[in-house]
């Protein structure tokens, strides 16, 4: 009953006209960003973040969250019609979605993606509501050693589950920690790595860093490659899936929803891994696995359900423990802190309006997305026809305005450009930006909890190992960090014995 009362309270906040408007703007921008290759939800959130400073914290987080799950809906449109994923979590939808479109079933694919996402989003929100309160209560037992351990574990998991080289991911996390230390030390106020540049005393701002690393670098790579996507010339009809489609896809949607939710909760998991896993599971358990890759509707329904459910799951550790499980949540974390609200176990107690208003808005947002995505698909197809030569200067301009407007300083624009160059070089040399930005956001909290723990224990390092939660978390984190070293040493020994 408590949960129901809280939900009604949340709905009373989210249906206020300004919150409804910002929810709509968020999901619309999110869908647009998901449809358009070249800019993802991280870039979009970073660009719009400065514009939210004049809003209330609830309106701001409702809009920014709307961009996140809206992008999951929009990403499937380009995957199905153009065979280019609008964003990373829709990569696997290309495999069967585009094949369905080639066979004249684009409408069924698009419709199933939208409905599957809606059902999964709803189930994910139910999971969020059920898990949030008990996890928040558990989080109240956390002290500085537990926070240090869990954050270290989260960073280790993100690097271990990275798409590319684990060694490079660990290095990027280390770079993120170093970058987070630039500026005045939080405890003694000593300037660190500021090189007598006054603008660095406050440290590097997350917004220009994220915009440069993800937004500007993506544009530089796209302009350099000058790929011109071809939109499939097919009539889009019958957007409502048939009964036969539902019978085939219902299991995939259910499994994708559950799998996606738990992958979203897991640090380092997230929508992309959830969709990939869902596709693998569906192909493995299917009675007709040979149909996958040739237009199997389960290959669209499962991953799309998984990626949307993962977005709800990701909010669980973010809101209840204050630990962002992936890059996007890290950016949202920074956004909430800028508005003076700290996610964590006390969020439910100190700011129940933010928590329940956000959760309720996610359901309202999912309804809006279903309404936006089904009849407006022909409009999104027209959006895809906007030439990239017009699109990329606009995106760059939005990035510049977004960076400038933080402190009315061109220094932040230069920071954005610098990280744009760095992100571009990362793509060339095959490094990932995700571990860097996660470590950058979590670095100050990690350091604060480390130093607080040692102050409380009067310098006794065993404080981390006598408390069970921090002990388990730190041991698993160290194991994940040591594993790549061990496999490297084993490989080195094999090379030596082969050479001998």
């Amino acid at each position, binding site marked *: 009953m408590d949960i129901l009362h809280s939900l009604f309270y949340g709905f009373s906040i989210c249906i206020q006209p300004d919150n409804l408007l910002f929810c709509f703007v968020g999901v619309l921008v999110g869908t647009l960003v998901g449809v358009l290759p070249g800019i993802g939800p991280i870039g979009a959130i970073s660009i719009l973040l400065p514009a939210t400073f004049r809003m209330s914290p609830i309106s701001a987080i409702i809009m920014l969250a709307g961009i996140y799950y809206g992008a999951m809906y929009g990403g499937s449109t380009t995957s199905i019609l153009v065979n280019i994923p609008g964003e990373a979590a829709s990569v696997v939808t290309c495999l069967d979605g585009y094949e369905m479109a080639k066979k004249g079933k684009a409408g069924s694919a698009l419709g199933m993606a939208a409905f599957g996402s809606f059902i999964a989003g709803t189930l994910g929100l139910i999971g969020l509501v059920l898990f949030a309160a008990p996890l928040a209560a558990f989080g109240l037992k956390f002290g500085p050693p537990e926070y240090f351990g869990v954050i270290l574990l989260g960073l280790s998991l993100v690097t271990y589950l990275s798409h590319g080289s684990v060694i490079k991911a660990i290095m990027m996390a280390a770079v993120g920690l170093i970058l987070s230390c630039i500026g005045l030390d939080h405890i003694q106020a000593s300037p660190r790595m500021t090189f007598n540049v006054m603008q660095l005393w406050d440290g590097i701002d997350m917004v220009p860093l994220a915009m440069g690393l993800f937004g500007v670098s993506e544009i530089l790579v796209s302009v350099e490659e000058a790929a011109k996507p071809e939109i499939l010339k097919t009539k889009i009809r019958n957007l409502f899936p048939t009964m036969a489609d539902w019978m085939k896809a219902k299991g995939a949607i259910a499994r994708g929803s559950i799998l996606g939710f738990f992958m979203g909760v897991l640090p380092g998991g997230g929508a992309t891994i959830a969709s990939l896993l869902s596709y693998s599971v569906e192909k493995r358990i299917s009675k007709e696995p040979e149909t996958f890759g040739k237009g199997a509707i389960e290959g669209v329904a499962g991953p799309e359900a998984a990626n949307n459910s993962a977005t709800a799951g990701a909010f669980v550790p973010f809101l209840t423990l204050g630990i962002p499980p992936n890059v996007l949540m890290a950016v949202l974390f920074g956004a909430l802190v800028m508005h003076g609200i700290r996610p964590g176990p006390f969020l439910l107690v100190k700011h129940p309006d933010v928590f329940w208003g956000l959760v309720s808005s996610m359901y309202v947002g999912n309804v809006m997305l279903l309404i936006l995505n089904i009849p407006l698909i022909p409009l999104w197809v027209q959006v895809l026809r906007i030439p990239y030569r017009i699109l990329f200067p606009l995106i760059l301009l939005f990035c*510049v305005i977004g960076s400038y407007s933080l402190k009315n300083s061109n220094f932040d624009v230069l920071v954005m450009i610098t990280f744009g160059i760095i992100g571009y070089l990362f793509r060339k040399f095959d490094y990932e930006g995700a571990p860097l930005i996660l470590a950058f956001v979590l670095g100050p909290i990690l350091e604060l909890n480390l130093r607080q723990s040692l102050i409380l224990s009067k310098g006794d390092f065993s404080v981390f190992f006598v408390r069970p939660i921090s002990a388990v978390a730190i041991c698993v984190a160290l194991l994940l960090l040591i594993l790549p070293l061990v496999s490297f040493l084993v490989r080195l020994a094999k090379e030596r014995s082969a050479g001998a």
Partner: protein
Amino acid sequence: MKLDVLSGIFWLVMAILVCMESARVDVGSFKSPGPGFLPFVAALILGGFGIVLVINAVLKKTRQDSTTNLWKGLGWHKVIIILASLIAYAILLPSVGYLVLTFALMLLLFGIIERPRFWVRLVTALITVLATYLVFYMWLNVQLPKGLIDF
């Protein structure tokens, strides 16, 4: 030189520089970490794994791209133009102002990938500047620099 060897050496040098800077601000000890503690430990991890990366790359028998191949056949000159124009934009923005400088930037960038007729670029740049001015300055109250034109 293999890419991973080059990047590994780069990160190793960065790690050494960060260690030196961390030592300057006082690393402290495990019992009493100073301001330089976290960057020092992070730099050790970065440098250590940088060495692992270099050795891994040297031992790998598969051929890897050299740095020249990274840009082969690609429009890297467009990237340089974009970056140079953005840097100039950032430096001149406070003095020249948003309206004039953004118009010039858009005029340039709209012709980077393809080259439509000049009047098309002119009109598109003008519409972009006016629309963004309306949205960001008038509606969202972003304080864009006035520069040469007082608005």
